[in-house]
C-alpha cells in the first residue's frame, strides 16, 4: 500500500544500511558473531544506541542452521537489556522491514532496527529449500531450487520471451556491475559453465553464500536528524500467488505487478530498480511485470546473481536502493524481494529522495 492510503500520514525513511561481505563459508563465526559487526555499523551511522531504537524486527530461517529457534541467539547481538520491543519473521528481512514500517506507521515507535542473516554453508541449500514446498504432492519428490527455476526458464524460452544467450548476458552484466560492490560474492567475468538443470547453467544461478544485513528506519523529523538525505518509503506492498506451480503461468508475475501497483511504483517512473531475481530468467519476468524500461538502471549492485545470501538478499535490495538515494545517485528507486519457488511471493518498495 502507499503511504497516502494508510491511516497514518507519517513519512518513514530508510536512514542507514549496512551489510557484511557475502562469503561461501563463515564457519569461523557463529550467527551472532557474523551479525554483530553489521548491527554496530548501522547504529554507528546514525549515532543511535540499541536503547534508543523503538522497535526491532529480524528475518532468518531455522532450516538453514538446522536448529530450532536459532533467531533467539542472534538477539544477543542486539543487547536486549533493558527489554526491547522485538519481533521476528521466518522470512527474508525485507518482510521484517515491512513489519517495522507498519509499526512505525502506527506511531508506536519513531525508529526501527531491521536485520536479517542467513548461513547457507552448514547445509545443502538446494535440498534445504525443498522443505518449503507443498508437503503432500511436491516435497516428497525433492525438486530442488534450481530445478524449479529451470522449469520457469524453459517456459520463458518456449514463449519466445528469452533465449539462453540472453540469459547468459543477464548473468554477465550482473557480475560486471558487482565489480563495484565489495560485498558481492561473484564478481567480474565468470564462465557461463555447464548445465546445472537445463536450460540453466551455473552462470544463470546465484552463488550460495552467508551474510547479514541491517537497516534503520526512522519517521519524520527523526529521519532528517539521522540522515542527510533520507530514502523516504513512498509505499510497500507484498503479494503471493498459488502454491501449486502447475496452477500458475510461470512466464508472468502478477503478484509482483500488483505489489508494485499498490506500492505506487507506476505513478511516476523510477530511475533505479534493485530486483531480487536469483536466477537470470527471473529478471526477464520481473522487468516485464514491473514495467521497467531500458532507461531504468537495474541492479547496479550486481543483484542476486552476484550475491544471494538467504534471508538477507531481499533486505539488501532495499538497502542498496536506499543507499543510492542517500548518496544522491537516485531520486526514485524501486526495491523488490522475493521468496518461494519461481517468484511465488513478491514485495515491492518505492523509495524517494527529496529534491536536491
Amino acid at each position, binding site marked *: 500500500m502507499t503511504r497516502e492510503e494508510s491511516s497514518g500520514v507519517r513519512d518513514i525513511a530508510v536512514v542507514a544500511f549496512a551489510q557484511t561481505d557475502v562469503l561461501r563459508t563463515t564457519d569461523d563465526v557463529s550467527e551472532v558473531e557474523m551479525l554483530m559487526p553489521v548491527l554496530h555499523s548501522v547504529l554507528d551511522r546514525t549515532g543511535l544506541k540499541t536503547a534508543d531504537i523503538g522497535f526491532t524486527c529480524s528475518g532468518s530461517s531455522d532450516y538453514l542452521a538446522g536448529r530450532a529457534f536459532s533467531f533467539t541467539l542472534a538477539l544477543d547481538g542486539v543487547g536486549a537489556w533493558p527489554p526491547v520491543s522485538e519481533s521476528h519473521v521466518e522470512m527474508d528481512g525485507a518482510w521484517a522491514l515491512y513489519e517495522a514500517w507498519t509499526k512505525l506507521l502506527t506511531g508506536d515507535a519513531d525508529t526501527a532496527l531491521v536485520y536479517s542473516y542467513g548461513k547457507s554453508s552448514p547445509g545443502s541449500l538446494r535440498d534445504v529449500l525443498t522443505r518449503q514446498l507443498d508437503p503432500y504432492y511436491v516435497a516428497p519428490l*525433492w525438486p530442488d531450487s534450481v530445478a524449479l527455476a529451470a522449469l520457469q526458464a524453459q517456459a520463458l524460452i518456449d514463449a519466445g520471451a528469452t533465449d539462453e544467450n540472453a540469459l547468459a548476458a543477464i548473468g554477465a552484466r550482473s557480475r560486471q556491475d558487482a565489480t563495484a560492490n565489495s560485498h558481492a560474492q561473484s564478481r567480474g567475468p565468470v564462465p557461463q559453465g555447464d548445465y546445472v538443470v537445463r536450460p540453466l547453467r551455473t552462470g544463470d544461478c546465484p552463488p550460495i553464500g552467508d551474510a547479514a544485513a541491517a537497516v534503520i528506519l526512522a519517521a519524520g523529523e527523526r529521519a532528517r536528524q539521522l540522515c542527510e538525505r533520507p530514502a523516504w518509503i513512498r509505499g510497500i506492498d507484498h503479494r503471493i500467488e498459488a502454491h501449486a506451480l502447475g496452477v500458475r503461468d510461470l512466464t508472468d508475475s502478477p503478484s509482483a505487478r500488483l505489489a508494485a501497483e499498490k506500492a505506487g511504483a507506476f505513478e511516476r517512473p523510477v530511475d533505479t530498480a534493485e530486483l531480487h531475481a536469483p536466477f537470470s530468467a527471473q529478471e526477464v519476468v520481473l522487468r516485464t511485470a514491473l514495467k521497467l524500461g531500458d532507461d531504468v538502471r537495474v541492479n547496479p549492485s550486481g543483484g542476486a546473481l552476484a550475491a544471494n545470501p538467504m534471508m538477507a538478499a531481499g533486505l539488501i535490495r532495499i538497502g542498496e536502493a536506499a543507499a543510492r538515494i542517500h548518496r544522491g545517485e537516485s531520486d526514485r528507486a524501486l526495491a523488490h524481494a522475493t521468496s518461494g519457488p519461481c517468484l511465488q511471493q513478491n514485495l515491492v518498495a518505492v523509495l524517494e529522495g527529496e529534491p536536491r
Partner: protein
Amino acid sequence: MPEVLKAPLVVEFPFTRSLGPVQGAFLTGLREQVVLGVKTSDGRTLVPPVEYDPVTADEIHDMVEVAPTGTVTTWAWNPAPRRGQPLATPFAWALVRLDGADTALLHALDAPGPDAVRTGMRVRIRWAAERAGAITDIACFEPYDGDPGRPARTSGQPGGERVTGIVAPARLDYTYSPGRAQSAYIAALSTRRTVGERCPSCRKVYVPPRGACPTCGVPTAEQVEVGPRGTVTTFCIVNIKAKNLDIEVPYVYAHIALDGADLALHGRIGGIPYDQVRMGLRVEPVWTQGARYPDHYRPTGEPDADYDVYKELL
C-alpha cells in the same frame, strides 16, 4: 586461538500428516492407479486437486477422474539426480497437464536425454510397482505416442480402504560449527576446565560464552576460567523419565552459578537425595571417564552460600 570446531549434524524426522477429503481421495486413487482431479465452481479441473479454489478460495470437493496420459507444459533436464528424487538416472522434471485437467502436475519424466524431451510432448504415467497412497505412487512419466488414455473408471471414488494420512520422511545433512566463542568453551571442557568470556562493557562473565554480551550487544573476547565449584541458585525435581535417558527418577535439575561466573548454567545434581537439594547448596562437577562435559554435580560439603551472594544470578 583454538581451532574452530565442526561436526556433522543430521536432522531427520518422519513427518506424519493427515489428509482431508480431497487429498485423501487423490492419494487413495493413486494407490488404485486412478487419477482424480477436483472441479472448481467455474468448471475447471485441478490436478493435483486442492481443497480450496486458488482463484475464489471457495471450498471445493467435487472429484472427477482424469486420464493417466497428458502433455508436457514445461520441463527441465536434470543431469545429476539428488537424493530423494524420483529417479536415480538423469531425467527431466516436467509439469504435465493430464488429459481432462486444466492445471499441471509436477513429476519426473524418464527419457533417454534432453533431445528426447520437448514442451508439448505426450507422456503417460508409469506406476510404481508398490503403491501406498502417496505422490510417489507415480514412479515417473514416460514418453507416450498413443491416443489419450481413458479414465480407468467411471465413478468418482476409488475402492479399497481410504488413505487418511502420509508419512513423509525428511532428512537434511548439515555441518555444524559453533563459531569461535563456543569452540573455545568446548575445547576447554576437553581438559576439564570451564571457560567463560567477560563483557568489556558491563564486566559480567558469561558461561557458556556465545561471543556476545546479551545485555550490551557487544562482542566478548576476554576469556575467564570459572569454577570448578559453584552454587545451586534454583532447581526442579524431574519425575518423568525421558526416552533414551539412563537416569533414575526422581532427580534434580539445577541452575548452577560456577564461582566467578555471572550467569548460571544448568546441570543434574547427584550424590545427595533429591529431596535434600536446596538453594545455596555448594556443588562441584563429577566427570566420568572419557566424557566431554560433567556428568553431574555433587555436594562439596561446604556450608551453604548466603542468599545475598547468588540472588542476582537466579
